């Protein structure tokens, strides 16, 4: 009888990192954080340095590729293009403060978050239902498999036909971008639950419902969170496209407007905002993941 040992492998913690020497016990964590921050600065500095150098020697045309010291110079001028109300199309000249910028970032983040939560919850429900009810599986699985490879970009017209202009199409596109992948991932995760877990539950007399609720659900969550986190960036890309074409507000709309008005500084400023927001979003997600999945070692959580 071949018994897989995935179960125990999952239980095992990853080897602890070799502690960094040279600091007293208390200062060690701070020291590590400082080192890490140092490398971050160095990494960013590399890009900025090359760019500024290219500008200084005249390779980069400041109109087309303005280096950071130019596009970050006149922030209040850039802020003018951010309309904090977020609900209206083609806004210009309504903003003007940091708050309007944060408002725009907030709207985009809200769309990503709502789309992700909806996609995660529904894909979990659908995935579990496919495995739990035979008929649901036979009816739904072919559909999911056929719809999964369709790019979210192809869904843009559908989103606009269905929901018009506004928040809904953007949320819908984020949802589409992760729903099918996550549903298929849920199925894979369910199929990979160690056989022993289920046999064990059966020997103590657990019903099918109890097995799904108390064994399969907690067993698949870590893997699902990893898949979700890998799809975070895809969700971010999709929301920007959706905002550019179908919403008329948010970071995507600002980028599109900057392109249309040939405002290279604004393009790069918005790109900086997008990168920063995406990074913070992923960090926040990592924190939540660690809280929810406390039993999985930190380095087994995946992602950054």
């Amino acid at each position, binding site marked *: 009888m071949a*018994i897989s040992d995935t179960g*125990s492998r999952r239980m095992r913690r990853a080897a602890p990192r070799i502690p960094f020497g040279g600091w007293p016990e208390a200062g060690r964590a701070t020291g590590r954080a400082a080192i890490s921050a140092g490398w971050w600065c160095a990494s960013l500095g590399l890009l900025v340095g090359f760019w500024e150098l290219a500008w200084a020697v005249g390779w980069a045309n400041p109109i087309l590729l303005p280096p950071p010291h130019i596009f970050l110079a006149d922030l209040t001028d850039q802020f003018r293009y951010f309309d904090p109300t977020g609900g209206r199309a083609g806004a210009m000249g309504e903003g003007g403060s940091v708050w309007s910028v944060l408002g725009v970032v907030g709207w985009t983040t809200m769309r990503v978050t709502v789309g992700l939560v909806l996609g995660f919850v529904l894909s979990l429900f659908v995935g579990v239902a496919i495995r739990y009810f035979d008929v649901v599986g036979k009816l739904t699985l072919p559909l999911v498999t056929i719809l999964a490879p369709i790019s979210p970009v192809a869904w843009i017209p559908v989103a606009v036909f269905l929901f018009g202009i506004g928040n809904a199409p953007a949320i819908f596109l984020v949802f589409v971008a992760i729903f099918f992948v996550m549903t298929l991932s849920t199925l894979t995760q369910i199929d990979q639950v*160690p056989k022993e877990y289920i046999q064990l539950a*059966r020997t*103590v*007399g657990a019903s099918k419902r109890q097995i799904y609720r108390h064994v399969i659900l907690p067993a698949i969550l870590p893997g699902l969170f990893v898949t979700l986190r890998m799809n975070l960036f895809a969700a971010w890309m999709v929301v920007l496209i959706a905002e550019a074409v179908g919403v008329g507000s948010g970071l995507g709309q600002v980028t599109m407007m900057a392109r249309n008005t040939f405002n290279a500084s604004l393009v790069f400023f918005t790109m900086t905002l997008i990168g920063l927001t995406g990074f913070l979003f992923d960090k926040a997600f990592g924190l939540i993941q660690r809280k929810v999945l406390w039993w999985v070692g930190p380095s087994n959580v995946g992602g950054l």
Partner: protein
Amino acid sequence: MTLGLSISNVSKTFSPAGREPVHALRDVSIEVALGEFVVLLGPSGCGKSTLLFMVAGLESTTGGAIAFDGLEVRAPGPERSLIFQEASLFPWLTVRENVGFGLSIRRVPPGERARRVDELLRRVGLAGAGDRHPSELSGGMRQRAALARALAMDPEVLLMDEPFAALDIQTRARMQDHLLEMWSSTRASVLLVTHSVEEALALADRIVVFTARPGRIKAEIPITAPRPRDPYAPEMVELAKHCSMLLREEVEKSFKEQELL
């Protein structure tokens, strides 16, 4: 009606679609009396684990019958507790929650559940580890938690599938002693699968030696020596030689078969 576990003329054939059927077991009959410790010894792949899973009610037989206290086994039941090769504790539950898992599935009220779990943890020597997670335990501690979880169901027979195979030799010997202590303080019978002659001799009232596939009973060896047993006592050395010889014949047979394939 016979009390205890009765396995009569059980066979098992796996018939994977589009391939030759595999005969895992043929005409196996074993009676396990109440409180008896029976060890199934055989080469890898001889179907002894399959037999254990059939007794647990997790696999169906393709011939013969398995009965417990005169009632035919068709599904898992609380009177038969299974312990796996590796502990397979749920990593998302604490040790205490793992041990109490079966009780909570059977809706034992929290107060009584906590009382029973604490008692069991004390008995297996994990009283201080109840709030830890399985990933924080050593292999031996995990198997003790698994033992406590199995005992929580008040089983009449413990089914153990090479429970100590993944442990190092010292831990293994310690766990065998521990199992014997637990066993003598319950009235449960034990049906334990192993491929280690030493383990079989240290534990069993009776050793059932299996042939290579298809698994049949090759010999039954009762051991009357009182426990704890000295493996270097002359009569134990004799038994060890005898068992090793029986086992070696079968291992060679299965090797030859594999070479033919």
